């Protein structure tokens, strides 16, 4: 079924809990739990439609940026085999017409692991690729903002 969509369903559930359960609870642990749950469900409702596309953009950006940075400074990738393996695996997932969210998550985790190692080396060696790495971090934060999942 298409209606309600997952986003609409989550939003409606949050609203119903807010209006029928939260208002009946006295201050205390139970009310705190329900209030937190409603907030999480609402934020998930906002994020669920964007999650797949944002994740795809994340993987594509990571894969392309890592290849570019590594090509510009070969010393940042001491384990070329692991790096190429992660990048090649990402290409396979991204080449699919509709990669699944679990596959995209695994791809993003793998690429982020490579980025973490590369970024530490870049900082230690004061690599000229540090600005590019920093810009990549900023774009990653921009994508997090698009999802709007922060509770604060």
């Amino acid at each position, binding site marked *: 079924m298409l209606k309600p969509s997952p986003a609409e369903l989550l939003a409606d559930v949050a609203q119903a809990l807010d209006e029928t359960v939260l208002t009946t609870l006295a201050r205390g642990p139970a009310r705190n739990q329900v209030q937190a749950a409603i907030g999480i469900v609402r934020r998930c409702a906002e994020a669920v439609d964007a999650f797949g596309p944002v994740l795809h953009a994340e993987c594509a950006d990571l894969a392309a940026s890592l290849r570019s940075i590594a090509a510009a400074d070969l010393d940042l990738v001491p384990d070329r085999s692991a790096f190429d393996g992660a990048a090649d695996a990402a290409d396979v997932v991204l080449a699919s017409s509709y990669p699944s969210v679990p596959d995209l998550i695994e791809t993003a985790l793998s690429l982020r692991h490579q980025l973490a190692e590369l970024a530490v080396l870049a900082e230690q060696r004061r690599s000229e690729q540090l600005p590019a790495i920093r810009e990549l971090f900023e774009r990653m934060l921009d994508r997090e903002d698009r999802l709007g999942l922060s*509770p604060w």
Partner: protein
Amino acid sequence: MSRQDEVAAGLLAFLAYELGVVSELIVSDVALISSIGNAREPWSFNVSWCDADGTKHHEQCVMLLKAGAGQLETTLAPEFDTIRALGGSDVPLPRALWCDESGDWLGQGFFVTAFVPGTATMRPLRVEGGVPELRSVALDLARATARLHRFDWRSAGLSSAVPVTVDDAALTQLAIWEDQFERQRLEPHPALVWAFEWLRRNAPTAERVAIVHGDLRFGNVLYEGDRLMALLDWEMTHLGDPVEDLGWVYRALWSPERSLPFSEFLAAYEDELGSPVDAERLRWYQAFSEVKHSVISLTGARSFADRLTLNLRHADRAETVPAFLRRFFELVPAC
């Protein structure tokens, strides 16, 4: 037996043991204080007794009981020892009474301090244009912080499990939080990994080793009207560079900026301390604070993911990290 009755019985047994030969020992009015505290569960109670010589005593008390897993796991002794060492000084804080680290009496460790009146509410922080009373409290806080930082901890018998020097104060804290990060993270977090490396390469040397509160901020400040009454929540206290507290106290989440600009807070602090604060060292600790809070959040998220806690406030705590990283990047100069 209700939880309240269990706690009352446990307290009575503990105090009978602790106080020794006394009579008319009564523990009363035991109540869980409504609080948003995470690592400690606060209880209030009254206790009265007579010494062997007939001297009557009465204390209105607050007990902090170690809670279940949450954001951080800390031992009680450093916290209690610090509060006790500062007792009688010009640093406002609750009077230390008793401590039990064993957990034998109440199932978890706890310590007891004397009750201090006041509120720790942060609502006035959000008032546009500021609040005069809060301005006064913030100035009090600046001066109290300076007094804390110049307190002679060596003469008071305090020490650190790991010796801290001016040369390694920053790196010691960095190592503690990086270790916590490595153990608690659920994913790679490349920006945080890089942040730790940047902090390590740019770590400053301290001018002095002092008592650092570790979580100095509104929310952990008890005040009444326009007067600071006590500094609370010393669970992250340690010996280190006191500028660490200055890097934490005005973070956006709890800043009293609307009532007192940070420049004025800092001026009051420097005036009380009698020396200026190095701007670059302060900026490092402001950046460090964003990483530290990121790790605290990830620890909370990990606790929920591992079902060590079912507190839903921790369920999505990892989602707070991007905002902290943004602030980190604002503080750290572009490469």
